[in-house]
């Protein structure tokens, strides 16, 4: 799907910018400066306004990173269940190959530590399970 298609698909919405940016991020792995300019033009916004939105939200990135991503929850409930003790091992397993991203809460707070890869969730992780999850990417 091209950027034009994505923009056209959401133009009928009130407040179409976030839905467009989500699709751009999903399709191209980032919201590049070129995409920002094109989206801004289509929505009659300044590039600064679009850039302001892209840089505000954690889900949008300015450049593409093709590595696999493992999201690890490090919020209070997962901390209470010991996630911090496993971070060093996870980082070592990930090295430069896998991107580890800290997220705050996946909503599975009674069965942490938790992680997310794509739309798949993983609960009750210990160090070995977390390392295995990183290794499997």
């Amino acid at each position, binding site marked *: 799907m091209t950027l034009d298609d994505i923009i056209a698909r959401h133009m009928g919405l009130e*407040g179409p910018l976030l839905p467009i940016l989500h699709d751009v991020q999903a399709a191209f792995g980032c919201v590049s400066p070129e995409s920002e300019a094109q989206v801004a033009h289509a929505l009659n916004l300044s590039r600064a306004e679009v850039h302001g939105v892209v840089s505000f*939200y954690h889900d949008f990135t300015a450049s593409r990173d093709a590595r696999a991503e493992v999201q690890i929850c490090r919020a209070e*409930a997962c901390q*209470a269940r010991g996630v911090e003790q496993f971070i060093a091992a996870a980082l070592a397993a990930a090295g430069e190959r896998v991107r580890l991203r800290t997220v705050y809460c996946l*909503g599975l*707070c009674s069965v942490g530590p938790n992680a997310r890869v794509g739309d798949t969730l993983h609960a009750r992780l210990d160090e070995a399970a977390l390392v295995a999850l990183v290794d499997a990417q």
Partner: protein
Amino acid sequence: MTVVRISDDALALACGADAVADAFEQAGCTVEHVSSWGMHWLEPLVEVDGQGFGPAAPGDVAAILDRSSGKAIGRIADHSFIARQQRLTFARAGRARPLSLEDYGANGGWAGLERARAMAPSEVIAEVIASGLRGRGGAGFPAGIKWKTVAKAQASQKFIVCNADEGDSGTFADRMLMEGDPFQLLEGMAIAAHAVGADRGYIYVRSEYPHAIAKLKSALALVGKRLSPFRVEIRVGAGAYVCGEETSLLNSIEGKRGEVRAKPPLPALEGLFGCPTVVNNVLTLAAAAHILAEGGAAAYAALGAGRSRGTIPVQLAGNVRRGGLFERAFGVSLSELVHDIGGGTASGRPVKAVQVGGPLGAYIHPSQFDLPFDYEAYAGAEALIGHGGVTVFDDSADMDAMARFAFQFCAAESCGKCTPCRIGAVRGVELIDRILSGPRREADAVEALPQMHNAAKAGRSREEDLALLDDLCETMQLGSLCALGGFTPYPVRSALRHWPEDFRK
């Protein structure tokens, strides 16, 4: 053929429910995917003829089917965790298939909407006020009063916005409701729309909840006509915690940075796209569905304590042996929740602290565990109920680290609009690092500069830094634009108050 019921809630899936369901299908059983009962330590929980087995693994299939499994827990509905609850909003949890209109109708669904639509809008609002329902997002504002304000506002366009940006750690009730009983939320929104004269609605769901988003989309496709003329659209957040704040959420839907707006104007008068808007939490709107059913308002008002009427879905999380969703009338104590119902810590060590109300909630010391779950009682103890999350910590928790984390989280998630939050959070982290670095500290290069008139040239003691931390907390609490900066001092100050020894290591 044996019918086996297994939840397809995100938490059950994360615990391996899919593999268990596959194994039962291979054994020739029919698997029905139901909502979760909320007994999370038992997930994946398998139900056969009302009997429960959990936590089940694919290898348990044969033993469960011939009833010899050691994982049997007896009749699920009679389990003490369920029997001790007073479930209204989660009445269907575990008992219905989330996307089955048949199950929804057979379990009281649509009764509220049908009755409400036969009533005048003002009568609907009067019932919501009479029920005593207060906003479940955290602020506890009376829902009926908010609806009344929007109903009275003169405008050609009004909106119902459902705040499903459940970012607080230790909370998952919104997620469970959206995944387990999505029709109830839509029904509640349609009731609100009828009450205030709105024909458009938005559900703003956080992007961390892909399963909830999918369920809501499917549910909407099934009942769009039934809700008509009310139209609902689902919007997905983009990873910003602060978008759970109502004005920031509205900006986000409008396609702007999720920056907080100053109030007034209230969103009830100038909300989404400048129009009068009801912004309510998932649980508040869902409660409207059963409150509007025949006798629902009186039944709701009859429960509770003081000015906190009805039930609160408490979420037992963190280091707790039996975690999950526990809906009960207001007034229940923390000692009952944590010890009797939760069974103490999962690690088996003593409970050190409990954080109630998410990352902005106070840490509560075991000596305060008699505190009744009630908005006013918590406010009186410099704590808050928030969204009803209860996160348990055992004695290995470092409260200095938790206080530091509160600032760190605020710094990461601040929208940047107001100074106390944007800068205060960063200074808070630095200050706690200094306090932990030792009893006395020499002036650093910047403090030694001649133009730094207010800096102590001879360095500062830990006690002076602690006083400074208290000052910072006061500034954030009184000067921040929204609850993110305004409430971050709650976990910090409560940690300092109850565990001072952790800051003097």
